[in-house]
């Protein structure tokens, strides 16, 4: 009898006997077969459960590597939920996350085990290479599996928060399965799929490679980060590993097309290209399309709060340089409502806030009911029974073809190099520096630069160095400017518009 899948581990349990010796996850030099993934993950699960970690957050603090994915699965085998942490994240940010989580277990590898000691953390630390030596205990794992329900969490990933405190988005089995099923259909994932992963493993974007690979017995390569600096080598890597499917952030794709790689070398096996996180500059998109005319191009859109991606558009027509690629339509079993300022459905062509309804909604923010309740709210179109929607804060509209189009952000959140950034978080971090009075960040959309203005008694280089220390790399401002006075609006708020105007005028003059 076919029963409905309730646990993401069923993907692995079902496939391991089908293709035990096929490569499941790999990087440039190491390969892990489905059998290895299965037995290592079960070893980790057994170990954690026996140590008393059950239904708890387990921090995975490792270098980006197939072992990190195996650890995720191991954590779920123990009935816990994984919390991936970027090895390059500044200590300050990690400490904020730890304060929110109060974790009792951290799994490290050889490269991170010393770094963890510099944190303010005194609970258990386990080493991957040690705990995979545990003999899997079938009875224990079966017990955990039988007790699990599909609304149990499987991960917490941290995103940027406007107050400077990162928010931990909690997702459950059901939402991930719901997403993976429809996502795999849209991409056409099969056992022949060879993924080339670009996105970090500490964001939900990596769901796209991790779980479809298990569902279909496909293969996923983690592409070395350094290759994204040297685009020729990157395309050569795609060819060497016969990678045919990629789901990348737009800047990774435009780097290849923008620097003229295709004049020298072309991806030979690539047939499916999904992209998201930012608007694809049309000029660059057309270069890709011309280079790979038979490939399938898919635009993806979605917030972490609704598990991975929520909308997709498969390119099915010619575009010209003035067009914008739509975000299309919601994935199966997801609904999008556009709400205007009166909380009513936006009319045809009218902009409205993109709100999401469905199983894909995550459980909310970890240990933060207040911020959860601000954005996971009762559907204002329904006053008959409880029904949550997630308010993305993104503005969209339907075009004349009935396709959803992304327009802008409602607040100061920006998308930069594939990362979602609250400018407020940068301001909050730099604002803590001694001697700083006021801070304000603006974003130059054209040049993709973050500009930070400040007042106070600090040198520019001190401010830059401080920002580097306290913020992840992608949040460090590109330009730092000292002001004598911070311009304010009549109600006493920093006048961002004025700053932006000034900046743009100055830019025009210098051009």
């Amino acid at each position, binding site marked *: 009898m076919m029963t409905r899948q309730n646990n993401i581990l069923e993907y692995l349990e079902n496939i391991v006997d089908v293709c035990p010796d096929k490569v499941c996850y790999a990087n440039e030099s190491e390969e892990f077969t489905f059998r290895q993934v299965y037995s290592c993950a079960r070893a980790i699960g057994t170990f954690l459960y026996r140590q008393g970690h059950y239904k708890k957050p387990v921090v995975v603090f490792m270098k980006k590597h197939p072992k990190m994915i195996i650890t995720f699965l191991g954590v779920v085998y123990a009935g816990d939920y994984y919390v991936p942490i970027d090895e390059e994240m500044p200590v300050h940010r990690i400490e904020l996350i730890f304060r929110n989580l109060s974790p009792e277990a951290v799994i490290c590898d050889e490269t991170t085990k010393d770094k963890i000691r510099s944190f303010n953390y005194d609970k258990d630390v386990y080493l991957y290479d040690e705990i995979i030596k545990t003999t899997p205990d079938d009875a224990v794992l079966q017990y955990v599996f039988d007790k699990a329900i599909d609304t149990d969490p499987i991960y917490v990933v941290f995103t940027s928060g406007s107050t400077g405190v990162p928010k931990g988005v909690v997702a459950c089995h059901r939402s991930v399965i719901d997403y993976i099923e429809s996502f795999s259909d849209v991409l056409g994932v099969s056992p022949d799929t060879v993924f080339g992963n670009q996105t970090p493993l500490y964001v939900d974007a990596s769901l796209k490679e991790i779980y479809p690979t298990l569902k279909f017995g496909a293969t996923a390569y983690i592409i070395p*980060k350094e290759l*994204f*600096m*040297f*685009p*020729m*080598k990157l395309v050569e890597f795609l060819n060497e590993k016969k990678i045919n499917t990629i789901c990348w952030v737009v*800047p990774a794709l435009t*780097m290849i097309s923008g*620097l*003229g*790689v295709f*004049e*020298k070398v072309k991806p030979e096996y690539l047939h499916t290209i999904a992209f998201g996180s930012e608007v694809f500059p049309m000029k660059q998109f057309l270069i890709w399309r011309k280079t790979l005319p038979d490939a399938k191009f898919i635009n993806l859109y979605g917030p972490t709060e609704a598990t991975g991606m929520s909308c997709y558009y498969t390119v099915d027509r010619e575009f010209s340089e003035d067009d914008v690629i739509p975000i299309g339509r919601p994935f199966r079993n997801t609904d999008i409502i556009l709400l205007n300022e009166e909380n009513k459905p936006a009319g045809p062509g009218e902009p409205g806030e993109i709100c999401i309804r469905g199983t894909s909604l995550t459980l909310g923010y970890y240990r933060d009911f207040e911020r959860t309740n601000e954005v996971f709210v009762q559907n204002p179109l329904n006053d008959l029974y409880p029904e949550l929607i997630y308010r993305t804060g993104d503005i969209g509209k339907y075009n004349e073809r009935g396709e959803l189009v992304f327009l802008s952000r409602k607040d100061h959140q920006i998308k930069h*190099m594939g990362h979602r950034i609250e400018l407020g978080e940068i301001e909050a971090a730099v604002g803590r520096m001694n001697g700083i009075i006021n801070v304000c960040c603006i974003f130059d959309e054209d040049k993709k630069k973050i500009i930070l203005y400040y007042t106070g008694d600090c040198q*520019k*280089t001190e401010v*830059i*160095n401080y920002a*580097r220390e306290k913020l992840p*790399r*992608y949040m460090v401002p*590109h*330009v730092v400017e000292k002001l004598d006075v911070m311009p304010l609006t009549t109600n006493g708020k920093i006048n961002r518009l004025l700053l932006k105007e000034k900046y743009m005028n100055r830019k025009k003059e210098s051009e």
Partner: protein
Amino acid sequence: MEQLLRILEELHPEVDFKTSKSLIDDKILDSFDIITLIAEINEEFDVRIPVDEIVPENFNSAESLYRLIQKLQDED
């Protein structure tokens, strides 16, 4: 060279670009920096760095990067 050093110092004020010879190998420059550099060099020196010159060896020091720019300017 002064112009190039200024661009580099704006990216990383904490680095001494006159002496550092392993900007890539020591992970001082990352992909953000490389993209920014290529764009700035294009703008300031009016040269387009061909993609097959975007290799670690050319970005490891200010000197090698400057040599590349000069070579490209001569070719024009």
